[in-house]
């Protein structure tokens, strides 16, 4: 076979390759002049025999490239789906919170306005926050503000679209609270803008761990909203009263959304406030 190959090469190399040139030129011209079906047959035969291995390699490379491309697309899709899953989880959490709210809302006959916290006071102590609901949405001053965990504060200033909420830790806010177990009434305030302190009569028998709720006596907050738990009890300057630290149910630094109860202050409080 090699001898035959050598013979052909020698033959074609004669006369400075003119034989080869004429041969290939004639071959090329024959292909040019051939009818279309014969040309198609030449191409089909060549592709299916001579160039088949190359075809396989090229298609394998193409396949590899398409896999790489598909991999990129899948990565992008994965990232997008992760985002969607994240949003879906957020939505589910929000739904759970709203379900809790619905149950919460059953206790009182006041409509609820859901709002998002959009800002808070810039000082070191968090005493005020801003929500994205105002008079346009039915929010007015002195309306109670709470979260699904418990009481947050009250609306101190309402504008058209935004309202300022005075938090329980604001030293200017004082409210009447009640021990859920003993039903003894005291009052709650913050002296330093950080901790909540409750003052309760000495004979009440309140213990650490007891739950405090709103008493409904102040005229602003309705009765029964959870406020916090008693942490530490100590003697006050007055012998008849006990001073106790209260841990609020709601951590004010992590608030994202709050609910405003559309409850106007009782008429007596309104009169006092107007005066």
């Amino acid at each position, binding site marked *: 076979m*090699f001898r035959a*190959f050598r013979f052909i*090469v020698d033959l*074609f*190399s004669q006369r*400075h*390759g*003119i*034989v*080869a*040139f004429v041969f*290939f*030129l004639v*071959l*090329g*011209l*024959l*292909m*040019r002049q*051939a009818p*279309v079906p014969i*040309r*198609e047959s*030449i*191409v089909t035969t*060549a*592709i299916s025999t001579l*160039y088949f291995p*190359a075809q396989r390699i*090229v298609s394998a490379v193409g396949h590899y490239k398409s896999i790489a491309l598909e991999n990129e697309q899948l990565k992008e899709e994965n990232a997008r789906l992760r985002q969607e899953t994240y949003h879906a989880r957020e939505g589910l959490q929000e739904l759970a919170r709203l379900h809790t709210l619905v149950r919460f809302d059953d206790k009182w006959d006041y409509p609820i306005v859901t709002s998002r916290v959009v800002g808070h006071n810039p000082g070191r102590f968090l005493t005020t926050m801003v929500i994205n609901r105002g008079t346009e949405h039915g929010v007015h001053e002195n309306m109670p503000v709470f979260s699904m965990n418990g009481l947050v504060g009250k609306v101190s200033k309402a504008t058209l679209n935004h309202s300022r909420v005075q938090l329980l830790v604001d030293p200017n806010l004082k409210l009447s609270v009640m021990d859920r177990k003993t039903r003894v009434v005291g009052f709650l305030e913050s002296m330093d803008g950080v901790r909540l302190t409750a003052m309760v009569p000495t004979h009440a028998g309140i213990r650490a761990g007891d739950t405090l709720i709103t008493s409904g006596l102040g005229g602003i907050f309705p009765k029964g909203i959870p406020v916090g738990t008693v942490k530490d009890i100590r003697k006050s300057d007055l012998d008849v009263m006990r001073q106790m630290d209260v841990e609020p149910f709601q951590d004010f630094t992590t608030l994202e959304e709050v609910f405003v109860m559309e409850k106007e202050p009782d008429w007596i409080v309104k009169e006092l406030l107007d005066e």
Partner: protein
Amino acid sequence: MSNLKWLKVLILFIIVFALQMTVADWLSFFDVGPDFVIIFIVAIAIKMGPAAGCFWGFVAGFTQDVYAPVEWLGAHSISMTVLGFAVGQLEERFLTLNLPAKVGVLGLGFFVCDMIYFLVTGLGKDVVTNLFLTKTLPECLYTMLIGGIFFYLDLGKKKKKHA
């Protein structure tokens, strides 16, 4: 010429086509890229003479024809056979080609090859003029540049061998 050398050229031929299908696309600007196949034919014709030049020219041309429209079958084969033969004749009969001459032959070969191709396919005068200005000329210059680099590296290799 030994059988091993033919095998080497065959492998080189496959590599050249692989380069033409991949690297040429990456190197192209504004749809103008180098033609590695023509560099290959010119290089083979210079190194191995007109017979090998027209053989590999025909093989390369036929390979391109197979993947071109069936109506133009044979056009590449003819033009590249002529190219391989002509360059081989130049090298064998008239010139001992140095680097600039090789690059010049490459450019001329590119130009002649395209002209024969246009002639064989029977494209209209306006189309040919347009293709000549937008494709042949810029691609010819680009191929000369790439071919020049290749010939320069090849010459450097030869000098090292002699030393």
